[in-house]
């Protein structure tokens, strides 16, 4: 479970995130949506513990992220928008390395690699150097690496951004299965179709603030448009005026 309490983040005195308050329960997939520069990646980085918040606290399964305890790291998996890679390692060596960073036994690592290589269709790439991997494969390799230690909390920044439709489908199903097994998943995405189909709840960020959060139904009520889809709700909440200006320009 993730509990974010009144998080703010300043970079050079400029407020990038302001008073963020949200939760992700066990077994729940929550989507973080918002325009470019809304603060989605910043929020994920802070929840993961890569950046410290200027104010506020974060709890992951009862552990405070500020303490940066090994316990928190052990239950957390974070997949950034630009995947971590070591160009001179093979995919398998990379997975073994990340597994050992999370103190997973060697036998377990090997067993999980053989499961994940089939599930994510990465067998072809496992023994090649990572520097030659296309972006999508890097993304899948990163996902595989973060699943090795079976995290109870998973943070994903644009997990399907570089994936082909088939791989995106596989990832979606994998995340749904993990949520069913009780994991808390927070993902940021620009693809509203994924957010709508995959997430039980959505958090809409704009200019560093949460402007709405809830289920699709609740968001419809907030936007006061009972029949609209997520795209329409999103555009209405995050700058309907700009959108109509754009349409005017295009016409």
């Amino acid at each position, binding site marked *: 479970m993730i509990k974010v309490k009144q998080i703010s983040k300043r970079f*050079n005195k400029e407020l990038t995130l302001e008073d963020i308050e949200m939760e992700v329960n066990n077994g729940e997939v929550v989507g973080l949506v918002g325009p470019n520069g809304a603060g989605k990646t910043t929020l994920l980085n802070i929840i993961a513990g890569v950046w*410290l918040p200027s104010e506020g606290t974060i709890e992951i399964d009862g552990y405070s992220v500020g303490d940066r305890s*090994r316990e928190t790291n052990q239950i957390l998996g974070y997949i950034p928008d630009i995947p971590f890679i070591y160009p*001179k390692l*093979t995919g398998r060596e990379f997975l073994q390395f*990340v597994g050992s960073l999370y*103190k997973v036994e060697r036998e377990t690592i090997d067993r999980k690699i053989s499961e994940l290589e089939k599930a994510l269709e990465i067998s072809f790439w496992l023994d090649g*150097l990572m*520097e030659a991997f296309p972006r999508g494969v890097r993304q899948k390799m990163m996902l595989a690496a973060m699943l090795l230690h079976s995290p109870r909390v998973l943070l994903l920044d644009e997990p399907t951004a570089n994936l082909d439709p088939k791989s995106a489908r596989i990832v979606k199903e994998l995340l749904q299965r993990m949520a069913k097994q009780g994991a808390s998943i927070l993902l940021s995405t620009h693809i509203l179709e994924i957010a709508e189909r995959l997430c039980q709840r959505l958090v809409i960020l704009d200019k560093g603030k949460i402007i709405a959060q809830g289920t699709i139904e609740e968001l419809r009520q907030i936007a006061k448009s009972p029949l609209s889809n997520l795209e329409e709700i999103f555009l209405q909440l995050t700058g309907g005026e700009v959108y109509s200006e754009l349409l005017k320009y295009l016409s």
Partner: protein
Amino acid sequence: MFVARWLILQAKILKNSFKEQEKQFLFRIVTQGLIFILGFWLLYLFLTYMFDFASKRNIRPFDFAASLLSFVLLVFMPLLIYSAIICSLHFLFQKEEISFLFTLPVKRIQIFEAKFLQTFYKSSWVAFCGMLTFIIALQTYFHISPLIYLGAVIASIAYLLIPFCLGVILTLVLSRIIPFVRAKGLLTIVGLFVGSLIILAIRMMQPERLATVEGKLSLLTFMEGLHRPWMTVLPNEWFNNVSASYYQGDIAGIWVNTLALVVVAFCFLVAVYILAKAFYVRIWTESLATPAVIPGKYGWKVLLKIFPAHLRAFVKKDILTFHRDTVERGSLLLFIPMTALYFYSMYVLAWQLRNYGESTFSFLYEYLFNLFYAGIVICGLAGRWVFPSLSGEGSNFKLLRLAAIPLRDFLKEKLWLGFIPLFIMGQILVVGSCLIMGISLELSIIASVIMLILTSGIVSIGVTLGARMADFSVKEPLDVVLGYQGIVFVVVELLFIIGTIVLTGIPLAVYFRSGFSSLYFFALIAAIFGLGLIFYFGIYIPYQHAIAYLGKRDV
């Protein structure tokens, strides 16, 4: 014109980076600037001191200055070529930027010209500042006409263009012959080539004539006695003649030598232009191909067992990365000539000892000088691999910080991985040189222990400073070494080496004078205490701070 517009854009980018992180950036610029100014000021002081020293010994100081300038430029020539190759491989073939530039309605040769100018600036500005410092020292000390600055700027740019163009030509030609994906591997050969050239240049200077206990006087007589008639065909001598002509008021000399430099530089520029027109686009296109390297099995797994179990994953990752990176592996070869030079110098020292008679003072001097020299070699290795290793993790450092393994373990691995090879290298240097110099077994053992202390300190300082000043945004770890962090590293390491040598030298000096006396034991205890203080306050405490800092800073 595209080149001019592009240069203005670079200036704007620099200006904007000021705006972006005003305070941080200003602080960095000010610190970096101050350190560089301090460095050049020290060089200036050193030069004027040497001129003074020469004039007091009835050696014409300008002749001395001219010899020094000429030889420094000659020795640095291969380094400038090497730097040009590294910079051109990096800047002339930047994937994202050039992909964008090639989509613009601009002639591709103009894009090359713009990148050429950027590469020239990146590769040569430090050398330019050094040359200018030398000229400032000459002008102020010998009261030469201030017009020398104008001439020096033109001559310096022309002089620097020659090795730079040579480097670019080598890069273009070799990248055309061998696929670009393997071009970085060329650095191996080029590194060896440069190393050999440096050895050749140093050998030409006959360093054994420097190796007398008299020190500076022999340096002056050595410089005075250098024969260099054939060198008039080399650009370093033309540059030297430009400054000499200003000193003598020889207008014709100024024109002839400046013209020689400018004409040769121009010829090289034309050669670069022709090659670039023929090859640049094709090489750049080939550079986009991803390498199809299939890693083989490695048979050194057993070696991992010498490391503690919880560190092996890090060690394996670092060794594999090093092993498969041809640039990293290739630059190891540069240390072969360095080691050869080291043993050669020790051989010369031993020869000098035999000639001068083995007085206690000269023996101790040579003994400690040997350790200092070995310490410098180890420091060079640590500066190349240990110090930038943490910054080399780049954005992957996030992964390490998010891991369930504490950062302390990660730094421990860096310590071990740096210490083991450098310890072996240090011991080879010390034991080898002790054998060459005919030093007794007891003193060889002491030298070996001192080297152990030096190595552990050098590596610990490298890791600590590398952690405290890590820059995870650099594209190449070497950028950290070449930045202000590198200067801080060198200064701290030098202080440590000198401190350790002095502290360990005192009890030895007392022993040579009075044997196992009470004074000796007092000196020994004081030295151990002093070393303890250095290690505790200078290394252990900063190391702990560095770990805490790494855990807290935003990545």
